[in-house]
């Protein structure tokens, strides 16, 4: 996996705890003025050559945004965000007229992805993984297109899908996350720039991992990712996303909306390794990662499984959720969230049980070090029709040092007496005797922490696709550098 090489490189330079993706790329950008208003939205839509209906959809979302209050930040300390002081669109000039082949892409941008370990050129492409690369507001290139289209699989940027598959987009966009859901959902709907679109036709098992790599490059620019994945009846897809950004002193906003739809007997496996720039040790800079991810198990026997490894960002606010509509449908959430230094994370999931015999499983591992705060916030909601619904939740928190915090906030609402909900939670400090034992066997203190924390996260990491699991383990160790001794 691309990101693996990237991490290996990172591991090789161990010893300095600096963020290794912190470089930026010199490219000429097309960037309208700062600020959020109808003009900007029209500008974005025009830049993308969007059909009229898309623009209307955006403008409507903007009206909704203006009426909505901001989400309540329960356990997060978030400075006031000045929406007018942010750029909403930025694309490298060279990508304005979508390059027809990789030869037309600015070599500087290709180099960026090479540096990140994601070669886009045919001859160097990653085997077994189709990649869509998003640079600031625009998709750069999607690999493996031909092979996928032979199977009828659509894997392209959402901008392209709006034009090429308008019926699918119209039918499903906003159908899982309504525009009016909360203010970030509305904001994203108004100004979303790019992201991936996937459609797996009936009966098709996608033979490769589909993957998107998000990169924020431009300064002061928000990234508004929009991803839509539809798995038609009896289909299967595994998708993974990775993210990095340059080191900058000011905070940058990443507000994503991701919608998944699984029809009868379909399965979607969605994995994230989030490693946005977390800010420096004093908490200066870093990405605000405000993400709405939601999957609808619309069909019977459908399954959606979220796996996330969240190690980056100054602030993470994210609750990948499942709406279990179809009878016998299953939702799963496996999460590792690591916060170090001044990072804050408030993450968890919502499992909404609607259909009969629906089941959900939540495994959350929160690790806090430095002065960081880490909250698990979850909701299991079992509606009255959801006869025989089942949920199992396990939340474990691990503290490294005395200045960090871990909080577990599980809500359970059940209006059904047949249902069964189990919840287990633990909080512990990293065990000094375990550390000593590992060090007595020759591991230095950082390797010892990495080993123990990886053991603590194992139940989650083993759900990542193989190529990603090794990378994630290294990332876990790296993100805790400097947390002991």
């Amino acid at each position, binding site marked *: 996996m691309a990101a693996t090489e990237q991490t290996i490189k990172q591991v090789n330079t161990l010893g300095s705890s600096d963020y290794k993706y912190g470089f930026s790329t010199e490219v000429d950008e097309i960037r309208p003025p700062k600020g959020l208003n109808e003009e900007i939205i029209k500008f974005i839509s025009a830049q993308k050559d969007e059909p009229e209906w898309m623009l209307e959809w955006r403008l409507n979302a903007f009206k909704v945004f203006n009426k909505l209050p901001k989400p309540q930040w329960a356990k997060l300390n978030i400075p006031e965000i000045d929406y007018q002081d942010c750029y909403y669109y930025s694309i490298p000039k060279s990508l304005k007229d979508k390059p027809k082949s990789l030869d037309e892409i600015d070599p500087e941008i290709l180099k960026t992805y090479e540096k990140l370990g994601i070669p886009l050129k045919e001859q160097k492409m990653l085997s077994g993984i189709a990649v869509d690369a998003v640079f600031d507001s625009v998709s750069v290139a999607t690999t493996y297109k031909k092979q996928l289209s032979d199977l009828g699989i659509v894997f392209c940027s959402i901008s392209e899908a709006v034009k090429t598959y308008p019926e699918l987009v119209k039918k499903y966009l906003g159908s899982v996350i309504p525009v009016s859901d909360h203010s970030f959902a509305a904001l994203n709907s108004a100004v979303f720039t790019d992201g991936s679109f996937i459609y797996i036709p009936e009966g098709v098992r996608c033979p490769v991992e589909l993957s998107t790599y998000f990169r924020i490059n431009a300064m002061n620019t928000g990234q508004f990712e929009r991803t839509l994945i539809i798995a038609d009846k009896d289909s299967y897809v595994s998708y993974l996303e990775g993210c990095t950004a340059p080191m900058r002193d000011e905070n940058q906003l990443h507000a994503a909306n991701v919608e998944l739809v699984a029809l009868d007997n379909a399965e979607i496996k969605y994995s994230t390794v989030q490693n946005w720039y977390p800010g420096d040790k004093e908490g200066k800079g870093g990405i605000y990662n405000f993400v709405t991810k939601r999957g609808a198990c619309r069909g019977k026997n459908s399954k959606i499984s979220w796996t996330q490894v969240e190690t980056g960002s100054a602030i993470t606010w994210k609750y990948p959720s499942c709406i279990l509509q179809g009878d016998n449908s299953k939702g799963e959430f496996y999460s590792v969230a690591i916060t170090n230094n001044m990072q804050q994370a408030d993450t968890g999931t919502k499992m909404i049980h609607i259909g009969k015999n629906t089941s959900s499983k939540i495994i959350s591992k929160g690790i806090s070090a430095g002065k960081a705060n880490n909250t698990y916030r979850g909701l299991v909601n079992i509606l009255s029709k959801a006869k025989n619904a089942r949920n199992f939740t396990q939340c474990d928190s691990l503290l490294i040092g005395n200045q960090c915090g871990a909080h577990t906030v599980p809500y359970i609402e059940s209006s059904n007496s047949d249902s069964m909900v189990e919840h287990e939670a633990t909080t512990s400090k990293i065990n000094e*005797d375990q550390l000593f*034992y590992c060090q007595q066997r020759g591991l230095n203190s950082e390797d010892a922490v990495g080993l*123990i924390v990886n053991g603590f996260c*194992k139940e989650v990491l083993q759900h990542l696709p193989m190529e990603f699991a090794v990378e994630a383990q290294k990332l876990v160790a790296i993100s805790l550098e400097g947390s002991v001794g």
Partner: protein
Amino acid sequence: MLEIKNLHVSIEEKKIIKGLDLSINKGEVHALMGPNGSGKSTLSYVLSGKDKYEINDGTIDYNGKNLLELDVDERANEGLFLAFQYPMEIPGVQTSFFLKTAINSKRKYLGQSEMDALEFAKLMKSKAEELNISTEMLKRDLNVNYSGGEKKKQEILQMSMLSPKMAILDETDSGLDIDALRIVSEGVNKLRNSDNSFLVITHYQRLLNYIKPDFVHIIADGKIVKSGDYSLALELEEKGYEEISQTA
């Protein structure tokens, strides 16, 4: 190999080791016996560098180096090994992975390249077989739900894979059944050579029938009160600590 002079150690203001001298040369096996609470495990932790122990006085020389100045992992990688009285469980970490990580940490410290996967698998298999440890066991999480005796055997497996210069065995015999005691002892004897040394902490003379020590020391209240050869262990078995300490 190891030269301890006038060692005084306390923990949380409590004096535990009170003027201990011990000298171990290359190729020697020393047995350390003494009543509960006399400071045997404390000595093993101080030698391996566990923190929270305060060294109030004394010196420890290890192969010409000031041992007290080295970090825990440096000591380990310089060949000092402690088989724990109570080995730790590490959930989520496969035993074989742990072994590999330990071996490669040492190789890295010594400036060697990582052991290749095949070579490692071979080494682990042969050492595990010698100790009658099943490969199934090595796939489990380290020490998690191992029986008391299985944990002790695991310590000896780690030791034989790391082939230390100076190994401290803290009551490795406690909890082992009769067959395991013999197997573990054979493992230790196999490792013995003219270049390495052992400090064997035990309560039972029986272990010393298998692992013949060159010297036997009796520790009481933080001091070595009597030293001798193998016959001292037999005498102790007969008379008990009380009488031996008095005749010291």
